[in-house]
């Protein structure tokens, strides 16, 4: 999903965050607010999959390790329902083959927690081909 345009456009849309940890969700939403980007948070994958956000957002930031459906299971569903939605996978665990599995599952980019904002924005840019902020 590497952007093909040589002059990437500015990111102009909204982002969904799915993480079952409320403080992480809260912090990421605040971070996007601080750069003027709309974002919505969901605690559970099923909640996101059943919401309008699935089709409205331009990018999904998805945690892998969650109670209920895991991030990879959610990604699988996303690929079925909205094949083009760029997805950035995050993990807080140490997983040696995380990158390979993330890409194989159809993620556009990946992040290891904790990460700086520039890493987050770079991952979104990589996934969407658009620059943030």
């Amino acid at each position: 999903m590497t952007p093909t345009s040589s002059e990437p456009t500015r990111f102009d849309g909204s982002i969904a965050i799915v993480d079952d940890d409320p403080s992480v969700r809260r912090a990421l939403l605040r971070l996007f607010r601080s750069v003027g980007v709309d974002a919505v948070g969901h605690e559970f994958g099923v909640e996101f999959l059943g919401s309008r956000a699935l089709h409205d957002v331009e990018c999904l930031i998805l945690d892998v390790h969650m109670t209920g459906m895991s991030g990879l299971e959610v990604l699988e569903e996303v690929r079925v329902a909205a094949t083009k939605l760029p997805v950035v996978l995050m993990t807080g665990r140490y997983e040696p083959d995380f990158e390979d599995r993330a890409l194989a599952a159809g993620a556009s980019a990946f992040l290891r927690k904790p990460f700086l904002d520039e890493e987050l924005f770079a991952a979104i840019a990589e996934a969407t081909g658009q620059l943030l902020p």
Partner: protein
Amino acid sequence: MNPPFDPIEFLEHGPLVPFAMDCVDERVLWVGPQAESLLGYPRERWLKPDVWDVIVVEEDRRRVRDARGSRAWATPGASVEYRVRAAGGAVLWLTEVGRVVQDEDGARIEGYLLDVTERKNREVAIWRSEERVRGILRNAPDAMVVTDIGGRIQTMNAQAERLFQYGFADVCGSMLDPMVPQRLRAAFTELRDALDPESERRSLVAGQAFAIEQQDGGEVPVEIGMSLVTTPDGEVQILNSFRDLTARLRLETQLRSSERRIRAVAEALPALIFFVDQAERFLFVNDAYAAWHGQRRHQMEGQRIREVIGESAYADYEESISAALNGTPAHMRLDVVDPDGQPRSFDMSFVPQFSEDESVDGFFGAFFDVSAEVRAEQGDRLHREQLAHVARVATLGELAASIAHELNQPLSAVVANAQAARRFLDPIAPDLDEAREALDDVAADARRAGDVIASMRKLLERRETRHEPVDLRHLALEVVELVRSEAVLNGVEVRVQEDAATTTTVEGDPGQLTQVFLNLVKNAIESTGRLSSAPRTVTVSFSSDRSDVEVSILDNGPGFPAGDPESLFQPFFTRRPGGLGMGLPISRTIAEAHGGSVSAERLADEGALLRVRLPAAPADDSSA
């Protein structure tokens, strides 16, 4: 110049009273003038036919008549002694010497009378005193031998005859000394020669240990007594008594040998042993106990406890001592410092000794040095603690990925909040409210990360077992934090039942108890994770009764493999590849060390239930 002997004068005035008497009717034919002064009767009274009936006492009359009629009276010098009553009523002894004279006038007795009262009375006194002595001798418990002052045997009782195995007749008049064994004879003689009738002190020998030799050569141990006695006629005699000591010596030997046996046992035992009487005096101590106090046995025996051990040490034993002296056995363990300054532990027993009337004579104390055992126990505990620690570290290693996740979550939030706050503080269009909230969240998330570190440190720390109030619910929540990521990874939801009404505080070591829950919850998560169908849950719930807090860890996993649930507690039993198999056995060891238990139950449908019971903390300790 002496007057010439005048027979007539002698007959009429000498002590002998001449008389003549008819042989047949015993009428006095003639009597010397002294007769009047002899009995106080006038001479004419003697010449009356009834004179003998009047003067001879009734008991002697027949004997006198018989003597005068006997053949003996046909020869000169025949005599009879009898008692007569004087005119004043006094009774006198007379000797009558006479002979029968036959001539043309017929047969008559001629002779004289002599007053022998004084001699006779003396003889009777002697006879009576000898009778008395013989009576005493006969009834004495000991063998008694009377000797003269030179040691010649005068008389002896039957007990003496039995002791010496000689008949009195055989030894009468011979020396007593040869009946003492040769080696003791000189001492015996010396003892006797030292007796002195003039000195009160030296007229008596009491309780000298000797031996006598029997006729057959056998030796008998005796206690000899000697006392001087003076007979009525002024002879000084020695009353020798011999008490046979055979039985007493046998008893004493038995007592000594039983005491020797007790001492032998007391010295052979690896213990400090002593006997204390009601006055709290040491009557018996073994060498080990004496040495403990830096004394010798004979120095300590007879001393009072307080004086030997000092007041402060006495206070340690006081309760046990008074219990034992009141008849109740007491036991205690005491840690002391030995004379070399080394710490020692003693198991001490105080065992009362009862006399035949069931009163308490005193008590035996036995102190067994259990320092080695105590050290071994401490070593065991140390070993157990080390093993538990190793297992804790291993468990944490297994959880490292999860714990990293638990740290990365708050750290992610911290970084995001910090960078957002920085932007909200933009000098051109600052949003201070957002910035403040972001920083509040930074602090909260940092604290959350710190809590993870703290609960991890609790498990990693290695220290002496502590005893403090621990809230098991709080501890369960901490554990759930540690394993949260593990639960998520396994798709398992861990619930901690909230019920504020239940007492969940116990007394114990927080690290070790955390380990118990970590093991049990982690096991439950791992076994449940294999279950394919949702919902997968592990539920931690609490209940309590008066004495215990019970924690149930219920999972709806596949349960245990077939067989005894107890096999789960066998070390190295594991179904997890790479697992150590020490989690459950260590959890049980820890719970048991806390006075509790861990048990496993297979549930009827699916799942497993593990119960941890721990004694509840004292009720007044509600602050924990």
